[in-house]
């Protein structure tokens, strides 16, 4: 069970803030001349003709890329088991999943196969594997990091984010990739001259932490205990905590999946086997040929999401699913804004459960979706969040998630660094 799909080295510039540092890159981030599969048989032999902006920035910063990491197919999964290249085992929890969808990237850092790694987070795909593998992961504010060269799954939700063994190292990687990019019109001026690494000073004296009860109540008992122990630690360093309520998050998983599946059904329409990807041949009607290419190239979870997204957008159902999901998204945003007007950060367990056993979750997709309950609201609200190791329950890693206001990366990095 492998961490990498492709193990090849690309050396970065001689000088730079990341000189001498090794970085693993999720296999949905384009690397010029290096195979980029998205964990899919569809793109088994796809070699991008250009680098993603974040890859260019890595090289300029002196980082050496050591390979492309395993992932759920097109980012669709919470365990890295939907990969067409087989699962990855959790390096710190034998027989368990590393989380997903950026499971290979988190595992690479946890197994010390790379100093740092890049993943992408559409509904928790950086924070979940960070929590499960006992490393640090950041989902940046929407618009902080360029998505140019990231193979799109759900554009309105996803961000590329960094992994590291410590908060400071992870923040230093964010410094390299953050900031405006003329190739991605959703990037903003924020992050241009960032120094997030300097914010990792561990100073939480006077920090106000809101704890959304809805994100704690449903979690596994051992996870909750470990979470409160970590909060106690932050309080002992001068932080204060209070409970907050986010009524809307009860609808966040539903809203997230309707929006993500709808966007996926449109994004993945490009895979018809003509310009790239698995070909369906040339005989017969084009609709039939495309149907064949997509039957052979896509795995079950990708088909499920493309079909459900097509259904949610189809005539007669658009208002029922897509429009209501957008209403729920606006409500979630409003709820977070209100809670963050009375707290510096919001804290919850990153995942409501410890890492699942390999093979446990594949048969029941809905059960797998529900595991994303604490991470998807943050993507719906476009906010930044970090997952930092909080401790263990029965020898299994537990992550603490801290959510901040838009472009408040420094605040969550500072808070998380108190647990390093």
């Amino acid at each position, binding site marked *: 069970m492998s961490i990498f799909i492709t193990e090849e080295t690309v050396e970065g510039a001689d000088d730079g803030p990341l000189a001498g540092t090794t970085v693993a890159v999720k296999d949905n981030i384009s690397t010029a001349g290096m195979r980029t599969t998205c964990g899919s048989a569809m793109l088994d032999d796809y*070699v991008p003709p250009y680098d993603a902006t974040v890859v260019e920035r890595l090289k300029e910063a002196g980082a050496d890329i050591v390979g492309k990491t395993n992932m759920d197919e097109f980012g669709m999964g919470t365990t890295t088991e939907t990969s067409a290249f087989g699962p990855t085992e959790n390096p710190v929890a034998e027989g368990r999943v590393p989380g997903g969808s950026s499971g290979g990237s988190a595992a690479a850092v946890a197994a010390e196969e790379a100093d740092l790694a890049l993943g992408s987070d559409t509904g928790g795909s950086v924070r979940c594997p960070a929590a499960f593998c006992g490393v640090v992961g950041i989902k940046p504010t929407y618009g902080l990091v360029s998505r140019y060269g990231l193979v799109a799954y759900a554009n309105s939700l996803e961000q590329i984010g960094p992994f590291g063994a410590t908060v400071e190292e992870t923040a230093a990687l964010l410094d390299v990739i953050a900031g405006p990019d003329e190739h991605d019109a959703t990037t903003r001026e924020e992050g241009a001259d960032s120094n997030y690494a300097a914010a990792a000073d561990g100073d939480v004296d006077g920090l106000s932490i809101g704890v959304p009860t809805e994100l704690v109540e449903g979690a596994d008992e051992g996870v909750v205990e470990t979470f409160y122990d970590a909060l106690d630690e932050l309080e002992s360093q001068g932080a204060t905590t209070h409970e907050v309520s986010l009524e809307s998050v009860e609808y966040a998983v539903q809203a997230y999946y309707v929006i993500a599946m709808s966007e996926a059904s449109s994004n993945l329409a490009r895979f018809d*086997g003509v310009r790239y*990807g698995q070909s369906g041949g*040339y005989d017969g009607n084009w609709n039939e040929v495309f*149907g064949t290419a997509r039957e052979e190239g896509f795995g*079950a979870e990708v088909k499920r999401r493309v*079909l459900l997204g*097509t*259904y949610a957008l189809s005539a007669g159902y658009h208002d029922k699913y897509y429009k209501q999901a957008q209403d729920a998204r606006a409500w979630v945003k409003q709820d977070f804004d209100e809670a963050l007007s009375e707290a510096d950060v919001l804290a919850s367990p990153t995942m409501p459960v410890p890492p699942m056993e390999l093979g446990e979750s594949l048969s029941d997709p*809905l059960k797998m979706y529900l595991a994303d309950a604490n991470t998807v609201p943050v993507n719906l609200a476009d906010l930044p969040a970090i997952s930092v190791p909080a401790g263990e329950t029965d020898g299994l890693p537990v992550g603490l998630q801290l959510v901040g206001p838009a472009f408040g990366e420094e605040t969550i990095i500072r808070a998380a660094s108190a647990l390093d």
Partner: protein
Amino acid sequence: MSDTEATPDDVRHVAELARVDLDEDEVDEFADQFADILDYFDALDEVPTVERESDLVNVMRPDEVREGLSQAEALSNADETEDGYFKGPNVS
């Protein structure tokens, strides 16, 4: 129960719209799973209408010619090409 139960025919219909061929086992499995998932999505009916913030503005840039991929680069991942073009199946 869901107002919109997913039948195997529904699954076949969206699969056709999405251009994804399915075998019969997949159709039956998806029909069962879709019923559960759509049932779960029904909770969205309870979401109140929220006034959405509309402080978004269009961001425009001048439409200037810039360097892009060469023809050879653009074609490099195509299974088949002809005379510098992508080759696709017949359009009926």
